[in-house]
């Protein structure tokens, strides 16, 4: 990869945590989520066949304001190469 940022970017603490964190065993490890946070709907993960990786919308939405780390330090560049940036001339006029 010819990846030359102007200044070498360091991964943030959150990025590093994401990389080093292990997968929770959703079925067998009981987590006490902090006050105000719901655990994944237990009914979804209790069936004997379930591998315990089913999450309802309300559980998933709780992460929205909690975890905001970019996937990698070169994320902005990667997005520009794939999705393009939002200043593209093709961008439709937004009336909001």
């Amino acid at each position: 990869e010819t990846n030359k940022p102007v200044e070498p970017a360091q991964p943030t603490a959150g990025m590093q945590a994401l990389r080093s964190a292990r997968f929770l065993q959703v079925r067998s490890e009981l987590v006490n989520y902090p006050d105000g946070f719901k655990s994944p709907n237990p009914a979804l993960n209790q069936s004997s066949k379930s591998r315990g990786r089913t999450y309802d919308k309300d559980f998933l939405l709780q992460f929205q304001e909690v975890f905001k780390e970019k996937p990698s330090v070169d994320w902005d560049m990667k997005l520009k190469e794939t999705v393009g940036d939002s200043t593209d001339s093709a961008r439709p006029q937004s009336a909001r």
Partner: protein
Amino acid sequence: TEPSTTTEKKSEGDIRTVFDDPENFNVKHPLMNTWTLWFTKPPSGKGDNWNELLKEVISFDSVEEFWGIYSRQNNITPTSDLALKSDYHLFKRGVRPEWEDSQNKHGGKWAFQFKDKKAINIDALWLHVMLAAIGENLEDEDDNEVMGVVVNVRRGFYRIGLWTRTVGKSLPGEAGKGRTAEQGKETLMKIGRRFKAALQLKENEMVEFSGHTDAAHAGSTRAKAKLTA
């Protein structure tokens, strides 16, 4: 609902979720599948190669990673800001979001067109459909039907689709999967109803199913929907 006990200290002191500490968590929530996000760039009108327009953006396999990509401040262009003829596709890893992919060629899709683009919040709808997909709410574990979800930005509408592996028939070379035609159809109908619920549609707003090859043979005219939910 569960009783909330504030007094009890955590017995598993070594489990820290992102809710405990977003900078120093040590467990993340696994997804059932690894998902790949793809983007279709609008054609420039200069004879683009489709392969250059369809780009793989990123793959992820945890809830936390998904939100790292989709949190509002992380710069992924919202669907409402995309140019016409753009698509986002969120597919299981290893499946290209194309009819021609060997895993799609016997399949079809549930879809709904939102014709009044100003009346809806396409960003919220697409988010909810993605959450239903990665949270595995669209099918049951043995169904093995959902390939991915897609949003198309077009001049007259937004369309959200859900691609399935089959059109309800059991597939050649997949011995043991043996669903009868009736069971296959019922599985697709169940998935269609869950898709409709994820899109928060009214009872009289119908999602329609069509096979990919029907759509291909129909050319520019719309394929006749085989199922509705």
